[in-house]
């Protein structure tokens, strides 16, 4: 789960990371009031996507009037499909001496949290990583030890940070990791971390992602979910315990198991089709889940055909077939479907589906080809 900048930075601040004073505005008038209070702000779109700067989602508001105008321009803006509903108005940093990149994230390959830092902070850090990898400093964290002072010293020393700032940097880095760990984050990123004209460290921008599996014990973070911005289909899928990602094609897919779901999409594409979604209904494939999945798939007007691919496994194929039939009765639709059942009791299941006048297929290739044909209307 991704957080907004203002949420991430508030969590950082709870762990001692210095952030600018700032408030969220939902209207231009609010932005004006905030700027009047703080005396000059930067107005930033709060959306779950990158590249908002280039898209015009970040503007200066040196005066209340300018802030109001900036908010007016940004609010309602569409950035990569997300509509901006709120802006963060942050006090301007008192002069910027240097911009640093600093992140704590999970390094899967080494199975450890990792500090990543660079003295060359700012917008183009990926380019730095590619062209001057030696400028990216990486330090792994042992979870049972936390961030030790020698680790901050190493990062500070390698970045050439002024010695007077080492202690503050250690405190900040310790705080960032503490925030990472306490909130079950998979990423906490400060870019840029600024050295101000007054010689202080300040986290000017912040990003944070939290492990979905840990939300059960992270009530505060879970409550930060921005439901306003979340697409309806994804919200429904999440609530039904279904793993769903919308795509641009026209063949709706319903599969049990993530690997088989991806494979079903791959094979569909192999035969010239375009999947409308990734959808894994998980284990069991009960009637109500099948129904929920169908409803979500069919809510996409692009969908011209549905491909259902279930491997019976321990759940028997005839039971799955009954579930599908029951679900179809509940969800009335004209969109054509092809169903392929495999594994235990697949034959019995297929017979039930054939009786229900459904298009069936034996192999995945066969099913995909039929779905492609159905979507093209050549059935």
């Amino acid at each position, binding site marked *: 789960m*991704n957080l907004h900048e203002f949420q991430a930075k508030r969590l950082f601040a709870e762990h001692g990371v210095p952030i600018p004073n700032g408030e969220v505005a939902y209207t231009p008038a609010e932005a004006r009031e905030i700027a009047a209070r703080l005396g000059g702000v930067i107005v930033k779109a709060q959306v*779950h*996507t*990158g590249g908002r700067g280039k898209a015009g989602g970040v503007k200066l508001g040196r005066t209340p009037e300018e802030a109001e105008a900036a908010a007016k321009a940004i609010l309602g803006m569409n950035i990569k499909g997300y509509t901006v509903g709120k802006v963060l108005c942050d006090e301007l940093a008192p002069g910027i001496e240097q911009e640093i*990149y600093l*992140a704590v*994230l*999970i*390094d*899967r*390959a080494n*199975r450890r*949290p990792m500090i*990543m830092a660079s003295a060359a902070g700012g917008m183009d*850090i*990926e380019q730095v*990583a590619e062209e001057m990898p030696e400028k990216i400093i990486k330090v792994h964290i*042992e*979870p*049972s030890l936390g961030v030790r002072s020698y680790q901050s010293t190493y990062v500070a020393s390698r970045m050439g940070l002024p010695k007077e700032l080492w202690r503050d940097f250690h405190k900040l880095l310790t705080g960032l990791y503490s925030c990472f*760990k306490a909130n*079950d984050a*998979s*990423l906490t*990123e400060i*870019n840029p971390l600024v050295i101000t004209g007054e010689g202080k460290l300040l986290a000017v921008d912040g*990003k*944070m*992602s939290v*492990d979905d*599996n*840990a939300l*059960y*014990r992270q009530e505060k973070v879970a409550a930060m979910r921005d439901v306003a911005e979340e697409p309806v289909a994804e919200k429904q899928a999440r609530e039904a315990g279904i793993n769903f*990602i919308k795509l641009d094609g026209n063949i709706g897919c319903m599969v*049990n*198991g*993530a*690997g*088989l779901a*991806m*494979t079903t*999409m*791959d*094979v569909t*594409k*192999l035969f010239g089709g375009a*999947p409308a979604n*990734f959808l894994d209904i998980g*284990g069991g494939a009960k009637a109500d889940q099948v129904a929920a999945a169908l409803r979500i798939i069919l809510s996409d007007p692009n969908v011209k055909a549905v491909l259902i691919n279930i*491997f*019976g*496994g*321990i759940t028997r194929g005839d039971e799955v077939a009954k579930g599908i039939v029951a679900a179809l009765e509940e969800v009335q639709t004209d969109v054509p479907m092809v169903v392929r059942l*495999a*594994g*235990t009791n697949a034959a019995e299941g297929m017979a039930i589906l054939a009786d229900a006048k459904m298009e069936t297929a034996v*192999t*995945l*290739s066969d099913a995909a080809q039929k779905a492609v044909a159905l979507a093209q209307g050549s059935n």
Partner: protein
Amino acid sequence: MSILIDKNTRVVVSGITGREGSFHTRQMIEYGTNVVAGVTPGKGGQVFEAGGKKVPVFNTVREAVEATQPNASMIIVPARFAVDAIYETADAGIPFMTCLTEYIPVLDMIEARAYLDAKGVRLLGPNCPGLLTPGEARIGFIPGEVAMPGPVGVVSKSGTLTYEVIDALTRLGIGQTTCVGIGGDPINGTDFIDVLKLFEADPATEHIVMIGEIGGNAEEKAAAFIKEHVTKPVTSFIAGRTAPPGRRMGHAGAIVEGKSGTAEGKIEALRAAGVPVADNPDDIAKIVAERMGK
């Protein structure tokens, strides 16, 4: 022959009295698995009956070990208790455990994996379908009905996709030594390389099928390992060629993972290691049959 489990493996099940645990344990016993004990805190002294067998239930794994000497464990408990069960099983001295539970927080797994490595204990999973030695024993979900004994070792990140591949092999008359689902979690206990080593050393395994998917770099590392250390033929499939790139936050992920993690990168690495990669899972069994001269 087989790897990791056979009909003599003595299995203890953590979570045996739970809904999921009792259902799958029953299936395992009916398949022939030698389940010797179960564990549910507070239910010590009860008896779990299945397939005409009486399995004693203990309050803790250590008591189960003291009384019944299991040498393998299956953990099937809710996510919030699973990490504790992993520590408990390792502490009790059981050298091999399979954790089926999904949704374990990744930071918990990082700590658990470091602990297991220090102890020298092997974990399969979490969030995996388990493993199956056809005709002998099963830990987890892999349906025994679609498998048959034979010379192919199967290792996979996936669940149902694996069943699909096993089913296809069996339908062509090609049996399996052992089928191992390592699970797709970012941090797991047993990786492709660990299983490849075991298959390479297992005299009964003649051919290896490896099923990967996008994300991480386990397939790339496995490809490098195969090139150097695996003499047996390996056939592969990678799921997720058409998956959209994940919605990444920030720059860190891109910097860390670089180009690894994509299906193209994995397929390229495997082909460079001399491993044929099927475009369609329907083809895997055919390629294996061809390479085995069937």
